[in-house]
């Protein structure tokens, strides 16, 4: 249990949180506001990675610009999806699930056919440093910082902007929001675009760290889905943060000791146990506690 080992564990913990947050936040925001599950989320992440890779390797643009292109590009694509597909499934969660799964197949198989089974990857900026016999990648620490910044921006938008207020109103009571003149369709469109943009950003950010293949979205979605299930759609920001922190707490020591497979099985079992007792996830449970506290205060 050397200090180096503990720091290495902490590094892995932060790295896992960043991964979960970036993979899941877009999905959770869409679930919380628009009330649909976008099963094409993995493919949107893949699109982000591909756009960055192509822009970097073919057009030789600076890496940061490529990532911005990914974010905007996938965000716009998401808005198209919302306009032409998602809109039909507002009150049909299972229908949206199946339809977006169809889109996910089209995107991944289409990419396979058009761009081939793999693509040359983007080189990882090599900012390594070592301590106590362990080496750490600076890039992945940067990802953690970016993840926190992204969550903060999302939270700030939710709670401190007029758009955020209108979005929260739509979340709580869409009919009432409409009656008060809020254009809920535009809220849904923008939210879906934002969630997709986040997916694109995630793909772009992780492109230098992994192989670029059409099915690369899969490695993100299984943890994203579990994070969403445990976090709950009641409050995407709080849900994403608490869920990522809790899940990384479970998976970091498990994968470190017993390998990634055990780590992922551990996450699935954790998800099953959590929803058995907290069916609306952590954010739903926190809301219940808040209401009970209000009840006690009122008496």
């Amino acid at each position, binding site marked *: 249990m050397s200090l180096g080992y503990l720091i290495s564990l902490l590094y892995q913990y932060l790295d896992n949180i960043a991964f979960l947050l970036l993979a899941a936040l877009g999905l959770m925001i869409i679930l919380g506001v628009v009330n649909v599950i976008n099963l094409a989320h993995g493919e949107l992440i893949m699109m982000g990675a591909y756009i960055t890779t192509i822009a970097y390797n073919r057009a030789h643009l600076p890496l940061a610009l490529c990532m911005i292109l990914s974010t905007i590009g996938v965000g716009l694509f998401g808005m198209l999806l919302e306009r032409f597909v998602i809109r039909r499934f507002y009150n049909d969660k299972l229908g949206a699930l199946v339809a977006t799964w169809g889109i996910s197949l089209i995107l991944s198989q289409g990419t396979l056919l058009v761009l081939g089974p793999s693509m040359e990857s983007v080189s990882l900026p090599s900012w390594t440093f070592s301590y106590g016999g362990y080496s750490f990648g600076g890039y992945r620490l940067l990802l953690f910082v970016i993840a926190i910044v992204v969550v903060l921006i999302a939270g700030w938008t939710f709670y401190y902007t007029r758009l955020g207020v209108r979005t929260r109103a739509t979340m709580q009571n869409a009919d009432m929001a409409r009656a008060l003149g809020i254009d809920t369709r535009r809220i849904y469109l923008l939210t879906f675009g934002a969630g997709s943009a986040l997916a694109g950003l995630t793909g772009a950010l992780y492109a230098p760290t992994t192989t670029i293949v059409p099915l690369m979205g899969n490695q993100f979605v299984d943890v994203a889905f579990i994070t969403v299930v445990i976090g709950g759609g009641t409050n995407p920001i709080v849900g994403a943060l608490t869920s990522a922190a809790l899940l990384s707490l479970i998976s970091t020591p498990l994968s470190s000791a017993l390998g990634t497979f055990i780590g992922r099985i551990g996450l699935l079992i954790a998800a099953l146990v959590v929803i058995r007792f907290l069916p609306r996830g952590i954010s739903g449970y926190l809301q219940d506690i808040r*209401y*009970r506290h*209000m*009840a*006690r*205060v*009122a*008496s």
Partner: protein
Amino acid sequence: MTIRGPAETDGVLALRVKDLTKSFGGIRAVDHLNLTLTQGELRCLIGPNGAGKSTLFGLISGLHRPDAGHILFKGEDITNLQPFQRVRKGLCQKFQTTRIYRALTVAQNLLIAGGARRLSRTKNGRLSWAINTLGLDSESEVPSGELSHSQQQWLEICLALATEPDLLLLDEPTAGMTPEETELTAQFVINLNRQGLTVLVVEHDMAFVRYIAQRVTVLHYGRILRRGASTKSSRIMRCAVSIWESVES
């Protein structure tokens, strides 16, 4: 001022609610409520909107968990039982907004309703009489979503009766009915009660309440305000109406 009705220990107690409390967020819907119902009684629960009537029903049938208090049904503490377990013990509720299987026919609705208590499939006499009286036997193959509003209400009462309850909770059974339909329903409920079924009714329609009630309980801000016996011209009824009207205005 409390007007005492017939002694509450007459007969077996069908339902006893002790110190029941339930809040939603900052709103206390039911506030240390005590209520008893003897077997074979027909009781009306009235009170302005927001007085806690539907919440009380939800607590009795199990849709909500109370924050405090107990519910005893036929002497047994059912406070921690799931809704479906309470139905199996003989407690069934008809909801305020009709919840029937709209896509299924009347016959299919009744088929489902009659199965949960594992009773022998011999005729449920009370149910057959009810279906007949309410005119639903001629609508057997009609999808229940296509019935008129009142027929849907009646169908839902029949679904509750199909579970062979000992205590029937009716939440605003005459909502949206014409005066003639209201009178029919009132007579129907009286006849049900005469057959021995304990009935607790929440109602807004004072004509209905006047018609059927033997004893009336008035709810206000989650507490019992007044209770007592009623005759068509009783003081409690006038008292209740005037309290209600003053609160509503």
